[in-house]
């Protein structure tokens, strides 16, 4: 799929995600809007995945380590054919398999259970190591939040990935500069991320993570070391009043805000 088509798909995912969070009355809209362009590029361009055979051993793996943005993943998986689109309306409802955090035992396309932060990258390192041990060509992608990189387990995994020479692993850091309660800079400022990753032996590419023309080549890059894409994004991207506002980490729009947001996303579609 080409850039223009990917952008159109991403906007459709934003609209469906916004509606799901509005109807459920809960969710993590800010970090979903920042990540959706990357999720779209992964599932509609980069990943070799098989919605009709989600457990195919030769599939590429994607781990959403920032599991609280599960709704964006569910919508993306639905648009890609892993789960029925109409099922999105069950998000967070009693007994729905669409938890607030993804469950690999229930939702096809989810590879491992995430929710507590700092879990996805170590698991992704294990996946990439398994491909190396088995001589397989499938690749592993994992997305973390930037605040999530404060978890020490990530740096354990970053060390191991370099030691193991995992050139089949891509870490995408959704660098939207805000965590739950405040700006990253006002909490435990990891920025700049590039020199830290490079010091640990990784190759680093910095991109505008809400620009499809930069996302696709970064995700398709092949090097000889583990690759980190530092994706500079905007929390709440695409919705003007949410953008870069920390309170939209998990705030839910009221009816008027919902209408305004939908209009903005609709206008952008033209």
């Amino acid at each position, binding site marked *: 799929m080409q850039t223009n088509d990917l952008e159109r798909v991403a906007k459709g995912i934003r609209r469906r995600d916004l509606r799901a969070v509005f109807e459920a009355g809960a969710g993590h809209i800010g970090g979903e809007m920042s990540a959706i362009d990357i999720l779209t590029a992964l599932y509609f361009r980069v990943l070799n995945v098989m919605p009709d055979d989600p457990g195919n*051993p030769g599939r590429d*793996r994607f781990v959403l380590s920032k599991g609280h943005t599960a709704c964006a993943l569910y919508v993306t998986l639905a648009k890609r054919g892993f789960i029925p689109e109409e099922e999105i309306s069950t998000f967070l409802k009693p007994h729905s398999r669409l938890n607030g955090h993804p*469950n*690999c*035992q229930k939702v096809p396309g989810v*590879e*491992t*259970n*995430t*929710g*507590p932060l*700092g*879990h996805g*990258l*170590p*698991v*992704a*390192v*294990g*996946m*990439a*190591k*398994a*491909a190396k*041990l*088995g001589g*397989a060509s499938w690749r*592993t992608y994992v997305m973390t939040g930037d605040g999530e990189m404060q978890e*020490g*387990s990530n740096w*354990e*995994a970053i*060390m*191991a990935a370099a*030691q*193991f020479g995992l050139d089949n692993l891509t870490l995408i850091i959704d660098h939207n500069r805000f965590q739950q309660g405040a700006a990253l800079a006002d909490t435990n400022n990891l920025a700049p991320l590039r020199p830290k990753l490079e010091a640990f032996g990784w190759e680093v590419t910095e991109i505008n993570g809400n620009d499809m023309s930069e996302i696709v080549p970064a995700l398709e890059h092949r090097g000889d070391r583990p690759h980190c894409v530092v994706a500079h994004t905007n929390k709440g991207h695409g919705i003007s009043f949410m953008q870069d506002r920390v309170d939209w980490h998990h705030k839910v729009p009221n009816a008027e805000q919902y209408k305004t947001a939908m209009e903005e996303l609709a206008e952008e579609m033209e």
Partner: protein
Amino acid sequence: MSEVLTAPKLRDCRDAFVAVLERLGAENEKVVAVCNDSVGSSKLGGFKAKFPERLVNVGIAEQNMVGVGAGLANGGMLPFVCAAAPFLTGRALEQIKADIAYSNANVKLVGISSGMAYGELGPTHHSIEDFAWTRVLPNLPVIAPCDSIETAAAVEWAATYPGPCFLRLSRVGVPDLLPEGHVFELGKANQLRDGSDVTLIANGTLTHRMLKAAEILAGRGVEARVLNMATVRPIDVEAVVAAVRDTGAILTAEEHSTFGGLGSAIAEVVVAEAPAPMKILGVPGIFAPTGSAEFLLDEFGMAPAAVADAAEALIARKR
């Protein structure tokens, strides 16, 4: 004959574990050992020599170690994640919960030097909370073999079981108790001796002490049933109910806190299914003092003679 001449040979269950692991590794190229720098203490040197690329040493990083295990399983490998039990279960408990149990990842967690095997090193290195921490997790069988034969059988079982488990091993020598060729069955206790006055239930390093206690009791005219109950989860409900029905009282002993371990698991069954007097022996909810594992087990009332005394006191509480 002197005590020394009749004493049975004591075996380190780690040797049985790695012997089976190395054979499995030769038979199946998916078998991987994951460790946290613990090649020596997990006795993985032989595995490393035979299959160097399948020894995944993540360094001193237990959270990553367990996550990597889950990822290896997702990628089609059969990982045995080996580390000292206190660090495997304590440091990486959330990884065990989310990445292994909740994700139902086919990872075999092997806790080495569990209980008070590192007795002299102090409570940071004691693993007397691990039954409690792991047995509350769905999807995760918890198993503490009593000897090298049961250890080998449990490792064989784990390799074919299509899901995660926690094998709790010691480095403290124990005599062989089960017959050669023993086949491990998950959730099934083994009756090592029958009796009608009381049932002694233990696992791991305590089972052989229960047999000695039963001998002492026999000398006092008391007949004790002895059950080896390696599986703490799922607990053998049938054996517990039968023990109450046939003997009317249960004494448990474990190299673990008395809070939340084997005794607690059995008490949950007793309360719900067959109320009867019970005595739970273990570390009584404190940080243990310095001393060897054997010293500490004696110190906490689990020397065979002390167990026999506790059993008699328990029997007096019947009816």
